[in-house]
């Protein structure tokens, strides 16, 4: 398969899959190495952007997904009226930030930081698909540990957790 065909094949897989596709799965399907896949993805990303395409590829450390280009969002909103995303309540945002920065984290660890019970916020975020159970802590009761999802990265416009803004533990009065 020549490079253009591989690009086409990846585009096709991503279109049909809709949801994020594991890089590993793409490598297997097209017998590519990490470097080759990364090269093709970079090339696709550049091409899509330069041509002002309606779709872009959204690449994270582990997955790839086709997403619509934000540039045309206003047209989509006029024409299709997609459901408006509601803004988050403060308790959801705080809970999400604790999960994002401290993951994997158990509910009681989140509650220690926030000083309030977080059952509702945690289950709501899980329902919305921003966090998911990623394991169990090796301690009494083996509580579930939570981490953020691909949807979290996508919704917040970053490709990996390393792009989160730095957590400022010192208050500015002290700096």
């Amino acid at each position, binding site marked *: 398969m020549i490079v253009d065909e591989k690009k086409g094949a990846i585009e096709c897989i991503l279109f049909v899959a*809709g949801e994020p596709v594991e890089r590993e799965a793409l490598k297997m399907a097209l017998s590519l190495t990490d470097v080759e896949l990364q090269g093709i993805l970079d090339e696709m990303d550049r091409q899509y952007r330069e041509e002002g395409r309606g779709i872009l590829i959204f690449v994270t450390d582990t997955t790839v997904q086709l997403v619509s280009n934000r540039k045309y969002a206003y047209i989509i909103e006029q024409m299709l009226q997609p459901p408006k995303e509601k803004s988050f309540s403060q308790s959801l945002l705080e809970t999400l930030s604790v999960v994002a920065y401290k993951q994997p984290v158990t509910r009681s660890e989140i509650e220690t930081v926030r000083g309030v019970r977080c059952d509702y916020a945690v289950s709501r975020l899980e329902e919305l698909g921003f966090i998911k159970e990623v394991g169990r802590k090796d301690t009494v009761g083996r509580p579930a540990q939570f981490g953020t999802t691909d949807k979290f990265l996508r919704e917040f416009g970053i490709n990996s957790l390393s792009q989160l803004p730095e957590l400022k533990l010192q208050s500015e009065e002290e700096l």
Partner: protein
Amino acid sequence: MDYRVKLAQFDGPLDLLLHLIEEAELDICDVFVSEITSQYLAYMDDLSELDMNKASEFISMAATLVNIKSKSLLPAAPILEGGEEDSEEILIAQLKEYKAFKRAGADLSLMRENASGTYTRLPEEFPLPPPVVNFPDASIDALYEAFVNVLNKERFRNEPYDRSLHEVKADRYTIRSQLRVIRNRLKINGKADFESLFDGAPTKMECIVTFMALLDMIMHNEISLRQSTPYGKITILTKELCDDDSKYEYMDEVEYDS
């Protein structure tokens, strides 16, 4: 009267404290030399608006604040070794951490606003059909042959007749006998390791009966158990060994003569 935000609008006691600190333009570290405690307590008038769970979170913080305040008014008690961490320091650290995450949450909200307008497709309902499995060589005859082969395997033919499945043995271990075993063990030096009771290769029945005897002995105040650390070794300590079993009620156990 001053305008005041309602208690119900705060997301827990830390949120309220942070609000008071910001109102007073204080540094978090100065919180306990200020009027914050009394201001916090003033908010407790609104408690009746909250449900029990939320209210108890606020009350617990109020208790911590009053405790810290009262400590600061009294002469310092001698510091006990290995005592708890200073509740004041803990609370300050907690407030700082909470503030950092609250700010991070606000940043996230901004990021989300900037990133809005991206849409994705739902996956095709059946993106990949399940692979069809074919067994081109399979036939009824082949299946029969395979089964015969399995039956003819050596291990089936030579398997000895398992008597244990067809005989019921008398109980070899009784509570009475295990009581004696444990007591004799304890008579040597007054204590024993829990695990050492199960040394050797005891059968499942022996383990169970020994354990039941142990429970009986605890109930009759013959022994007590000690464990110094969680998951650590359990030590059996002698309290008052009995020599006769008259206090014990037995299920109709028959002593087995070995």
